[in-house]
């Protein structure tokens, strides 16, 4: 291996100019959070110059994705796979300001190069289908009814010239029901230059990622034009996950927690009733020891040799007072300005680190402040739920809270609702709790596209402004439609998922605003589960069987009455059964009868 690299180095010097423009970078940022959880943010970024890309000369940029992008003329692409819920009350602000996460399920938006709406729709169809094949997700279910064209909520992140901006179309689609599992991670890892074989991506394992309390996989592709340099196309792949330390330390073959034997229980001795036979278990999670390879089930298998050697691959955000042990060969770089330190990982040996137990008792008792960095307060809290009851009408209520005591927050609120959820726009109201008056200026602008049955969904975009330290209740009513028999999915009784509302917080206009407010940040509510009136699917069979029975009975009876001739029992001629002899006797009797009858008539 080393031999090979020694040949490679002079070669790379030859192509130094190329190497500058197209490069690769990866970093893992760990951040212990309260409640004994840890946030792991993986970030992989590779660049390729636009000329190389157009010449189909892919170095770090994944070829499989590059070909799709070229085929459908995609200018910018964003794809998200998310699972779980970010607990903002205890974990604070979201990683990357929420810009690299999606609503539950799969979310896709892209700017396509198209002269007309029809062309954009056609390209969108082929993009969603191609991506569904690549990422093993049902992205082909993003059809016209689930596609929206947002007006305000999304802005291109890359640098586009004015001429390309003119014929770029934004399309957005969400699949809230889509499950995210190992088959989505497999193609994600295959896009990386090191393919999960070296570097921080070796930690990524479906068994841990999909056991996380919250996780989000993101792919962003955008063109960037740094000043005085050639434009590059950047692909950024991000995975964020919140792992419950206690849960992920469980052995893989025995993950079900079983009660501890009595003598292993840790008791809370401060309780008044604590005695030798009464035990109140302590919060076991507090100040736990954990190691990287325990939590992820693996160690980092050396640094990825393609990455920029200047960038340390692993960083952790903990106070400098916290002890951390690392494997030999790695080196620590402490940041003096903020509670963060980074590690350089050797190329060919495994890397792990241990964060030992911090004793809360003894000579130098440690507190939570020594152990974790206090999470930042988010700019906005959002919570959305259904109101009302019954199968005909319903309502949605969103509670938006601005926790800041002195700054107001301005944002776009976007909902894309399925067509079978018909909203009554006149019932849309917003009222403030906390500050009296100022009712009308909460909603500043409304963009609305009503739903058409089976053709398109509702799109609602609001521009809102919330005063400091107040809560806004946004409510509207809707009506549930009844679907056709064949339109119900196989598990209709589970309900129908409604996509998350997307909140885009606008950057503050004042120049002295804190750093977090100077950028656009995002937030998504949880998705909702709408139960529609669902028929009893076996009913048609019951109806068919029941009516058939009724018809058979009625028809049979009637037919019997009409056709049969009723004769009294004494009138029945006692005739023998079968036999040639009987037939002859019958015939003779008939003959005699006839002659008698003829006589009778004469009488």
């Amino acid at each position, binding site marked *: 291996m080393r031999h090979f690299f020694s040949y490679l180095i002079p070669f790379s010097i030859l192509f130094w100019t190329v190497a500058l423009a197209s490069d690769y970078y990866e970093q893992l940022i760990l951040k212990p959070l309260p409640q004994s959880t840890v946030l792991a943010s993986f970030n992989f970024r590779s660049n390729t110059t636009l000329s190389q890309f157009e010449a189909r000369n892919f170095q770090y940029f994944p070829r499989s994705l590059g070909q799709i992008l070229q085929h459908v003329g995609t200018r910018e692409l964003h794809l998200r796979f998310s*699972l779980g819920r970010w607990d903002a009350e205890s974990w604070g602000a979201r990683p990357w300001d929420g810009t690299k996460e999606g609503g539950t399920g799969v979310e896709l938006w892209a700017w396509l190069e198209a002269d*007309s*709406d*029809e062309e*954009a*729709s056609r390209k969108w*169809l*082929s993009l969603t*289908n*191609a991506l*569904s*094949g*690549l990422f*093993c*997700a*049902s992205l*082909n*279910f993003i059809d016209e009814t689930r596609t*929206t*064209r*947002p*007006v305000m909520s999304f802005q291109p992140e890359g640098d586009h010239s004015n001429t390309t901006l003119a014929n770029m179309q934004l399309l957005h689609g969400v699949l809230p*029901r*889509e*499950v*995210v*599992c*190992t*088959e989505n991670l*497999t*193609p994600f890892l295959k896009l990386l230059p090191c393919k999960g074989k070296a570097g921080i991506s070796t930690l990524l*394992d*479906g*068994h*841990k*990622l*999909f*056991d996380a309390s919250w996780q989000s996989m993101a792919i962003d592709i955008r063109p960037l034009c740094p000043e005085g340099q050639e434009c590059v196309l950047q692909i950024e792949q991000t995975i964020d996950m919140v792992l419950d330390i206690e849960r992920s330390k469980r052995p*893989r*073959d025995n*993950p*079900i927690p079983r009660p501890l034997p009595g003598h292993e229980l840790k008791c809370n001795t401060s309780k008044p009733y604590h005695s030798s036979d009464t035990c109140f278990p302590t919060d076991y999670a507090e100040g736990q020891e954990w190691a990287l390879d325990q939590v992820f089930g693996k160690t980092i298998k050396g640094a990825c040799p393609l990455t920029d050697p200047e960038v340390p691959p692993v960083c952790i955000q903990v106070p400098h007072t916290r002890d951390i042990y690392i494997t030999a060969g790695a080196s620590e770089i402490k940041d003096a300005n903020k509670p963060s330190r980074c590690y350089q990982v050797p190329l060919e040996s495994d890397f792990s680190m241990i964060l030992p137990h911090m004793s809360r008792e003894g000579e130098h008792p440690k507190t939570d402040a020594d152990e974790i960095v206090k999470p930042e307060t988010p700019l906005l809290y959002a919570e959305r739920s259904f109101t009302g009851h019954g199968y005909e009408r319903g309502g949605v209520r969103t509670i938006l809270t601005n926790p800041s005591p002195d700054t107001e927050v301005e944002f776009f609120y976007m909902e894309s609702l399925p067509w079978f959820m018909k909203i009554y*726009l006149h019932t849309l109201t917003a009222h403030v709790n906390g500050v009296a008056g100022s009712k009308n200026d909460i909603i500043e*602008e*409304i*963009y*609305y*596209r009503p739903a058409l049955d089976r053709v398109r969904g509702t*799109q*609602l*975009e609001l521009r809102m402004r919330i005063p400091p330290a107040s809560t806004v209740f946004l409510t509207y009513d809707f009506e549930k439609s009844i679907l056709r028999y064949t339109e119900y*999915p*196989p*598990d209709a009784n589970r309900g129908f998922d409604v996509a998350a509302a997307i909140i885009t917080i606008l950057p503050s206009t004042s120049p002295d605003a804190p750093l977090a407010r100077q950028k656009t940040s995002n937030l998504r509510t949880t998705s909702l589960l709408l139960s529609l009136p669902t028929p009893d*699917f076996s009913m048609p069979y019951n109806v068919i069987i029941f009516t058939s029975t009724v018809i058979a009975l009625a028809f049979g009876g009637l037919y019997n009455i009409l056709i049969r001739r009723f004769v009294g029992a004494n009138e029945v001629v006692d005739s023998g059964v079968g036999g040639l002899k009987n037939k002859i006797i019958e015939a003779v009797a008939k003959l005699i009868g006839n002659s008698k009858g003829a006589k009778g008539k004469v009488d």
Partner: protein
Amino acid sequence: MKLSNVLNLPALLAASIFAPSIVSAEHTSNWAVLVGTSRFWFNYRHLANVLSMYRTVKRLGIPDSQIILMLPDDMACNPRNAFPGTVYSNADRAVDLYGDNIEVDYRGYEVTVENFIRLLTDRVGDEMPRSKRLLTDDRSNIFVYMTGHGGNEFLKFQDAEEIGAFDLADAFEQMWEKRRYHEILFMIDTCQANTMYSKLYSPNIIATGSSELDQSSYSHHADNDVGVAVIDRYTYYNLEFLESEVKDLSSKKTIGDLFDSYNYEKIHSNAGVRYDLFQGGAEAARSRLLTDFFGNIQNVEVDGARNNTVDEEMLALSKTIAKLRVLADEEEAEAKKASQNNTTAPNKSKSQTQKRVPTAKPLTDDNWYGKKLVGATALASCAALWALGSYLETPKN
């Protein structure tokens, strides 16, 4: 335009010359279509059946690009699963079937009868990605495995629809007519499974099922921590044979050996087999190697000693084709020029009438007074009309 028709002629000619030479050849590619058809957690075992077959064919070398895997529900990442990202088919939990490297081609609501038949017959739209298509030819051996809940001549898909034995037989016939397979091994594990292949009528199919008419197929055992049954008996014993007897591609075990291993004591139902569609009957079918269907054999077709005269004829033909092509191109280019001159004007008018997708519109109160005024005027004029009418109607005394 007419020239292009002429161009097709030599191709047809060539096909007719070479067609007889490729009659009883071996297959050159292996494909697997693995279909689970049950949704919901309690049908865990059906997905485990499919996934264990997936692992087996993958172990024997069929690449993901040649395996079509249909999973109707998500068991690995199901919230009820105590082992996230994992599916086991045995209570000893030795093998994680989901693993780290899996590609599911059709999942969730995509697993429908329509999609399954479209997949087999390749009647799909242009936008369908290659990974979701069965790109077989007349030299491909296909292993088709299905499992789920079924009955007499039907198999349920997701508890919502069902595929009939006739539908399946017609789909296979269409595949044969389109020269989409060389040989098929059809295996099905469901209740009354043998009825499902009873209607097949296309050649070169070996079929096997888990149980006869009016017989149920049973599950093998349950895992108490998973909480449900993890595998069906028939699939379990198939796997047991494949794991122990077919260790690698060099195995010489035949289809007959596998079918002989079935017995009522193990499977608790009468597994059935059908050879009569196969060329050469039971004997030929039974002597086929298992690796012909479960493994990836890459036989390379080498053109044998060719007749020199044919070669020369072909060369001459290709030369004329090249000449004709140049002519056709020229003609087309001229036609294009002419049409461009003619159609520049209509093109413009066409682009003006393009359909526009309505986007979200701002809701504004700008002309609130205007709207009110229009309403008031309309009301007032109605009232005036009424008044006028009643004035005219009043009898003048």
